[in-house]
């Protein structure tokens, strides 16, 4: 499956790689291969990864397990009502996230992305499931590993890729970066950098829905590392006390940067902390999109209809380090990562499922993969060709009032050092 070459391709070749800016038809990694050998190696690795995702490689035991598992969750009303097209769309959305993240990885290694990059690779089922069960008045918010949910709610690869590079065409005009994708028009509220800092914000969005007498809920995503921050507990207490329709969705990928759950958290099941606040909770396999949809939709319905907040915790995994700055050498084994890729990958699990259901075949799969790769490639080119914001943009979007001078009611100086 994955060769030993994988170790070398993890190293950042940024010092050696020159970004090939030429246009390509971009249907596969092969056609984007530049003359640079390091880029070749990376592209080859990606191709190998893709092959490894194909269900033909999937171990027999894992295959049987997923088909058995699906029998429970495919019957859940939220999944039973899915059409063939819906299921293909779910699969496509996961692939799009995977390809986008892989492409951003290369962009980062080319030195075009500053600061942090927290990849969502391995967790795709959760973001796609969440977006797919949101109803007209439901909202979602997350922390800094936000590319997955951003694409899942419908943000474009172009604006997301451009944002990473600090370009003016980015979704936050280059002012936020990787951790701060926002799309209020799609009821997605970021993109937040302080661990657990978003947990009272999600509570607040849900509070606003209740205050405005709208029937909706807010899904507040967080990692398992966030459950120990004090403000999360404050938020749980308020949610339960005031019956606020928030669903806290813990994406438990096992590691808070380099610290495993066992080394950081008391209590085996983190969602169970809800009991301390008389809140409901659920726990499940985050790699099964059917299961995530079923359990999350259930929790959201309870929040929406009965104003009962809850915690749902899904076990998942990230294949890459915490961020690109994480050498990912000290806290887990290569074997553990390979085991997940081989036997638990959420995309492969769903591919097996859909092949079994007669919805996907080789041709369809290849086409979806190729389209996603091409879309990601085009977004990288879009970002490359986009301008940076002009210096004056430092001063915009600071205050509503300074952005609306005709409606400004206050007087005096709002800024004390300007461009």
């Amino acid at each position, binding site marked *: 499956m994955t060769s030993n070459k994988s170790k070398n391709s993890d190293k950042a070749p940024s010092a050696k790689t020159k970004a090939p800016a030429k246009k390509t038809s971009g249907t596969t990694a092969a056609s984007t291969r530049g003359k640079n050998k390091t880029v070749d190696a990376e592209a080859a690795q990606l191709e190998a990864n893709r092959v490894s995702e194909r269900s033909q490689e999937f171990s027999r035991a894992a295959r049987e397990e997923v088909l058995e598992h699906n029998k429970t969750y495919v019957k859940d009303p939220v999944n039973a009502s899915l059409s063939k097209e819906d299921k293909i769309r779910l699969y496509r959305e996961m692939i799009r996230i995977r390809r986008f993240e892989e492409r951003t990885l290369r962009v980062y290694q080319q030195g075009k992305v500053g600061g942090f990059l927290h990849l969502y690779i391995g967790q795709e089922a959760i973001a796609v499931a969440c977006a797919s069960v949101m109803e007209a008045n439901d909202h979602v918010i997350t922390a800094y590993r936000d590319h997955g949910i951003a694409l899942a709610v419908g943000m474009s690869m172009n604006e997301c890729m451009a944002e990473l590079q600090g370009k003016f065409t980015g979704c936050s005009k280059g002012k936020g970066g990787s951790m701060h994708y926002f799309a209020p028009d799609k009821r997605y509220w970021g*993109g937040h950098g302080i661990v657990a800092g978003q947990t009272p914000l999600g509570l607040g969005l849900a509070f606003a*829905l209740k205050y405005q007498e709208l029937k909706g809920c807010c899904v507040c995503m967080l990692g398992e590392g966030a459950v120990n921050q004090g403000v999360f507990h404050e938020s749980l207490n308020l949610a339960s006390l005031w019956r606020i329709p928030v669903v806290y969705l813990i994406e438990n990928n096992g590691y808070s940067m380099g610290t495993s759950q066992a080394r950081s958290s008391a209590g085996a099941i983190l969602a169970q902390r809800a009991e301390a606040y008389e809140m409901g909770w659920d726990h499940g396999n985050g790699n099964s999109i059917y299961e995530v949809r079923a359990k999350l939709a259930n929790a959201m319905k309870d929040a929406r209809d009965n104003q009962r907040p809850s915690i749902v915790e899904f076990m998942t995994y990230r294949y890459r380090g915490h961020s690109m700055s994480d050498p990912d050498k000290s806290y887990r084994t290569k074997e553990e990562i390979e085991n997940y890729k081989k036997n638990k990958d959420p995309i492969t699990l769903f591919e097996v499922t859909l092949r079994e259901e007669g919805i996907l075949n080789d041709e369809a799969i290849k086409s979806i993969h190729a389209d996603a790769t091409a879309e990601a490639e085009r977004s990288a080119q879009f970002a490359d060709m986009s301008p940076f914001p002009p210096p004056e943009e430092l001063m915009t979007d600071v205050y509503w009032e300074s952005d609306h001078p005709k409606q400004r009611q206050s007087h005096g100086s709002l800024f004390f050092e300007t461009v």
Partner: protein
Amino acid sequence: MRQITYRQALNEALDEEIARDPNVVLIGEEVGQFDGAYKVTEGLLKKWGPKRVMDAPISEAGFIGMGIGASMLGVRPVMELMFWSFSYVAFDQIINNAANVRYMSGGQINCPIVIRGPANGGTAVGATHSHTPENFIANTPGLKVVCPATAYDAKGLLKSAIRDNDPVCFMENTILYNDKWDVPEEEYLVPIGKADIKREGSGISLIAHGRAVITCLQAAEILSKEHGVEAEVLDLRSIRPLDEEAILETVRKTNRVVLVEENKPFCGVDAQIASLIQDKAFDYLDAPIKRVSAIDAPQIYSMPLEKIQLPDARRVVKKALEIL
């Protein structure tokens, strides 16, 4: 004209804005059933009910963060801190979320919150309850901060703050709550960002905010009676945005200035104002800019020493005489 207390003025402002805008909701510890720790919200729960006036548990980070999140969807929370000293437990929410969500989203969100409460020492409540963090807030682009000294200003500024579409931090003073001032019956607003000359004079400028304004007015009386100097007292009222022009105008008029604040000296608001004056009114100065701030130690408990620690009229007069 009728006279009401600073406290009553705040109460009226809250009452009027709750009546005016269905999005306004009060949240804080003891604001409802207890009628407010300092009775600022007295009677409001009874009048408006628990949807509009919410008693919060002791969770500043939680309920202020909640208010920020709710404001992103158009709710306009007015959140009380029993003391601004308690803001620090919510500081991540205030500094990282309230101040930044608009910027980080490229202007897609705004945060029309008000956080209000007393920010003052002078009441023997010790080092952890006596903070005046207007300087920390003022250092943060994206936030606004105002410090009214009189009932008239308190009412007008609070109404303006609630109507403002940006996050406004509103700093009151428990010692000022009982002071009575002329306040009209009719509705009025005091615009944010406009300083106010509380006493005219041409001998020296005393620039202050909050309770230090009252101290400066007392100092001005002493300077007039005992030294024949007529001081001009400029009340900043608003720290960010700052009325730079009013500051420069009074300096151009008197050529001498003492800046007075109840905060500790290093990086207090007056440090910024001193920088501004020497930069833009250098040629008008006939003497160095002088500052009077709190004695540079954690706020002491012992009452006679705390009295010494905070600026008083005598200390302001003494400093003024150094440059007259």
